[in-house]
């Protein structure tokens, strides 16, 4: 047996060690830097003058779902019924941040489909969304009683996502 013929085996043994150690890592979790931090400071007007807008302080005191949406966004239509249902159930407060939209169209959109939001902030410039690290609408954030972001969901919020990701967290905070 020549030593050089053992070489491939040694390389493979090294690889195996690497793979076994690497198996414990979960590649699918891309941590959002904002999770477990305080929600960014913001103060937005409402869709209509005279109504109350939305600011950071409004997120305190109760568990809140912050939903970024826009009337021009096709997937937002898909997740909308779930938000309406959540409001009906009354288990969690839902607030909306209307992203780069025209207040008039947002109003009409909500009038047509029902308004699930307790309060709405109009982020017509998209600056607040940048502070929150929004990739694109829709996105939803779970904010706890102390104003700390606890979960971030990118894209359409489906009933499955809601039950798998949000409900267990909410149960934890309700105790």
């Amino acid at each position, binding site marked *: *047996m*020549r030593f050089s*013929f*053992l070489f*491939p*085996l040694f390389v*493979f*043994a090294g*690889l*195996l060690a*690497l*793979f*076994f*150690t*690497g*198996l*414990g*890592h*979960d*590649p*699918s979790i891309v941590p959002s830097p904002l999770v477990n931090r305080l929600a960014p400071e913001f103060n937005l007007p409402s869709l209509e003058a005279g109504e109350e807008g939305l600011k950071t302080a409004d997120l305190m005191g109760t568990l809140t779902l912050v939903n970024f949406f*826009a*009337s*021009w966004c*096709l*997937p937002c239509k*898909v997740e909308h019924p779930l938000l309406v249902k959540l409001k009906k159930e009354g288990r969690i407060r839902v607030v909306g941040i209307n992203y*780069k*939209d*025209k207040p008039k*169209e947002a109003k009409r959109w909500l009038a047509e489909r029902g308004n699930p939001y307790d309060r709405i902030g109009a982020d017509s410039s998209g600056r607040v969304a940048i502070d929150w690290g929004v990739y*694109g609408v829709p996105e939803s954030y779970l904010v706890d009683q102390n104003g700390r972001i606890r979960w971030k969901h990118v*894209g*359409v919020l*489906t009933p499955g996502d809601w039950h798998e990701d949000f409900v267990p967290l909410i149960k934890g905070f309700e105790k």
Partner: protein
Amino acid sequence: MIPELGHYALVLALFAAGVQTTLGLLGAKRRDAYWMLATGPAASTQFLFVTIAFLALTHAFVVSDFSVTTVAKYSHSTKPLLYKITGVWGNHEGSMLLWVLILAIFGQALVAFSKELSHTLRARVLGIQGFLSTGFLFFILFASNPFLRLDPAPMDGQGLNPLLQDPGLAFHPPFLYLGYVGFSVAFAFAIAGLLEGHIDSSWARRVRPWVLTAWAFLTIGIALGSWWAYYELGWGGFWFWDPVENASLLPWLAGTALLHSLSVVEKRESLKSWVVLLAILAFSLSLIGTFLVRSGVLVSVHAFATDPTRGIFILALLTLTIGGSLVLFAMRASKLKSVGNFEPLSREGGLLLNNLLLVTAAASVFLGTLYPLILEVLIDEKVSVGPPFFNVIVLPLLLPLVFAMGIGPYLPWKRADFLAILGRLWAVALAAFAVAGVIAALYSGKSFLALLGVGLAAWLFFSNLLLLAERIKLFRAGPSGSLARLHALPLSFFGMFVAHMGIAVLLAGITASTLWQTEQIRAMQSGNEVTIAGYRVRFEGVERISGPNYLSDRGTFRVTRGGREITNLTPERRYYPIEGQWTTEAAIYTTWLADLYAVLGEQADGDGPWAVRLYHNPLVPWIWIGAILAAFGGGLSLADRRYRVKGKPKTKITPKAEKG
């Protein structure tokens, strides 16, 4: 009922594979003729049952039987029939079943085309194949059973990732797997050769058709994948050095090396242990390619099954297969005596250089792919290795390879007169410089790398032409004499000729499309116009349409050139509500010399301008034409007379040489 039949068929296939392994390996060891002869029928039985299982799963997908978990998770009743069928392998469980089906198909093909092998070699090769099937059938049954029932059955399925609902990708996995799994035959031959303790030129002649088959399929599979990435991902690129792409490139590089060094064993009985190692390597990289990316070890957008228990099962299988074969290699490789000696400057030396460059390239790509994992394990840091690394590492290896490809076929076996060969090639070098010079004069956007790429492509092209001209004594033997010589050339020569031409075309395509791509990224409103590479593109607006299982925003772009209507480009942004995902459908207008490529992005602020990306990609179709040519060349070689199966079984191939 039918899913249960499929499940049951899988169990029977597992038993048949176990019998095939035992009969083949033990039978050859005990020299028991009955056991050895029964290996073939065992392999055919296994093939039959795996086919039944695969058809059963396909049936469940076609009739949308949502009581089957796999169907419920990856199909939907509104999906077009084609994607219901391709959905069978658009998920982890089904793709594993496809993998095993192809393994069984190759096993059956071995039964049919190995009649002239010696009894022990044939039994051992089938035994190793059976061992592989046993392992993976075991994995399917115990860790990724596609026939698991769901109770209660949902009303409808969750749908297939819309990126996979595409004709390019529908047929990408079968071709890729035909390539990956095809290398299992070379692997089985290598292990059988080690067990026999003997490898000779007839062994190499028997392996070569299988390697050619696998290589040609893998080439097409990779080309399909890259074509899909080109028009579906909407970035105008064709290769992204994604871990999954690299995983398919690795066995291709090793397989290409194997293909070339096999001829050294066949013609000169040299480099034997190296060839065996390459055969093990090519299949091991295929295994790692298929399974590593599915076990959650590596991060990739493509990896659609991440599950640690499966990962451990897969690693155990890899340990057994690859580790076992390498232990055997370490024990037995020194018994493989090489006969032919050669000088460094010779056909053998040239092929060794080819192997060295290809294997180094494979090792670098492998290292680059694994580097993030190494870093994460060692110092817990997340990094990603991108195209710049791979371009810097791989180009300096592959460009000299193309240069050597222009010389290699001129080298005679044993010893070559290098200067004399260079003397024959001066005209080729001149022609290559002329092409590079013309390009440099014509195009303003010239870079050294671009000229080098185009020059090398021309070098390979003309060198190949000259080779053909010399072989048929063009202008020297007279028209009829040349024609007669052309007719007498073996098909394997044409195979090499076409495949190398394919590489020249491919290199030209890659160079031109990467270095001379022009792009226009604009926010456009209907009525806006933009000019790209001499085309005037007018944005006519966007309409919303609905497809069978998606909604879509479709933009229309009117393309004119010098006032003449060229075409209408209609790129789409599709939304698949069932899966909750967006896809982009690029619109492409091709002249075969260049593509005009349009992508519709997002609309700003609800009714603002649309983000539009337009690319002009010169020679990009040549990339796929080149790959198809290369694969076709492999097919031509395969049809060569010397690989034809002879009617009469020869039983005396190895025994006389069994000294070691």
